[in-house]
């Protein structure tokens, strides 16, 4: 993990640049272990910035979230860069956005931070959900040292770290203007063990599994809204002419929505796990998107968010693509 003082210094330098509007980072949240996205326009605001394994939000979403409202006559759009703090997976989101031309490289200043995994808020809540006091956390390799209101505790990393981080293959940012902290040498391998586990079950068992999850969905679209690659101006889920997904919340429509989203993020999802993290109904979305990721690798040997020059998966083809299962 990066040295905080050094990080703030670097960010301050960027905030002070004339061509930078603001820098997106993290600050301490309003209670307990919660961390909040933060926007710094001045060096003083940078002093609020923190960086710890509790910083889980994928900030890349904010690059595409700002509404472009029609400006009054004579007023020109403020063309300034946005600085953003990214970890390995978030940097892949940025690459993906660049690849799809959702943003241009000149619009962003990327501050890369190598990341050795983030804490899963839901696990954190289970363990320390009753603590409202300030939570400080430090990554000590195998363990997290957690200090709450001066009380020190140690927890095995295994127990708290986010599932997706356990098998993260890209702990170092794949793109950055400034790299803060030392690159992580250790290499992990994604084994898709959970996906495989489900794959081995029967069709009926798999349907029973997902049926229960999809029935629960309340269609708050938090999964979609927190997702950097879900940046369509108008989502098909809300289109009324024609209606692709009906407005009613039922198994059929919920399943339709999740099938649609998994297809639309195929070859684009970089597996940050945000969607699963924000789901208020604990739907294991990563298990779905990891499956798509795995298939895309197996079928087309394609990995999202690594090369900004690469063409998007579904806008290219190869004559040698699999003919399996085609009559």
């Amino acid at each position: 993990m990066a040295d905080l003082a050094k990080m703030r210094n670097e960010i301050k330098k960027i905030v002070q640049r004339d061509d930078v509007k603001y820098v997106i980072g993290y600050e301490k949240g309003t209670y307990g272990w919660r961390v909040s996205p933060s926007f710094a326009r001045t060096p003083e605001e940078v002093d609020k910035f923190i960086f710890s394994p509790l910083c889980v939000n994928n900030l890349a979403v904010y690059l595409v979230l700002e509404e472009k409202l029609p400006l009054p006559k004579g007023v020109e759009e403020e063309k300034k860069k946005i600085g953003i703090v990214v970890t390995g997976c978030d940097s892949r989101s940025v690459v993906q956005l660049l690849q799809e031309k959702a943003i241009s490289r000149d619009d962003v200043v990327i501050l890369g931070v190598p990341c050795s995994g983030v804490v899963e808020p839901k696990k954190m809540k289970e363990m320390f959900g009753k603590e409202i006091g300030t939570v400080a956390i430090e990554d000590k390799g195998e363990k997290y040292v957690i200090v709450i209101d001066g009380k020190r505790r140690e927890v095995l990393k295994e127990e708290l770290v986010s599932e997706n981080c356990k098998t993260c293959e890209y702990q170092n940012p794949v793109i950055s203007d400034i790299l803060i902290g030392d690159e992580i040498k250790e290499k992990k391998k994604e084994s898709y063990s959970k996906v495989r586990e489900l794959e081995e079950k029967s069709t009926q068992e798999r349907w029973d599994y997902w049926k229960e999850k999809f029935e629960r969905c309340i269609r708050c679209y938090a999964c979609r809204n927190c997702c950097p690659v879900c940046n369509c101006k108008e989502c098909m889920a809300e289109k009324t002419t024609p209606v692709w997904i009906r407005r009613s919340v039922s198994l059929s429509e919920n399943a339709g929505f999740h099938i649609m989203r998994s297809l639309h993020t195929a070859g684009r999802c970089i597996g940050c796990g945000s969607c699963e993290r924000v789901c208020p109904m604990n739907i294991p979305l990563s298990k779905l998107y990891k499956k798509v990721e795995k298939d895309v690798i197996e079928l087309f040997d394609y990995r999202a968010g690594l090369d900004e020059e690469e063409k998007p998966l579904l806008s290219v083809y190869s004559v040698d693509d699999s003919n399996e299962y085609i009559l």
Partner: protein
Amino acid sequence: MSEFEPNIVAFLCNWCSYAGADLAGTSRIEYPPNVKAIRVMCSGRINPMFIVNALQEGADGVLIGGCHPGDCHYSQGNYYARRKFQIMRKILEYLGIDPARVRMSWVSASEGQKFADVISEVIGDVKKIGPAKNINRI
């Protein structure tokens, strides 16, 4: 009890498979009548949501018909369709929707007999797994 007769929706490309289906008809090749054909200009035009919507609206199986690789009227539409299909098939299978319900086939304008065979095979497979109820709209 009468035998289950599945509803099959077939999205057929204008230039090959639809013509193939036509040929099957004009050549009086018999094939099961459970198919509702929807003509699209190209298999590449088929939005995966067409398939989801068909399954939601009561189809027991969906068939996508396109030109043989290399023969697409628009030169590459069917290649794109193939990519989408392969991903879609895997996702549906993973979610517990039998992959036999969503099939793809290359049928050229001259393959009337192949069209009839494909239809028979799809219907035979769907009959084996029974009606689709998973994501039906109520």
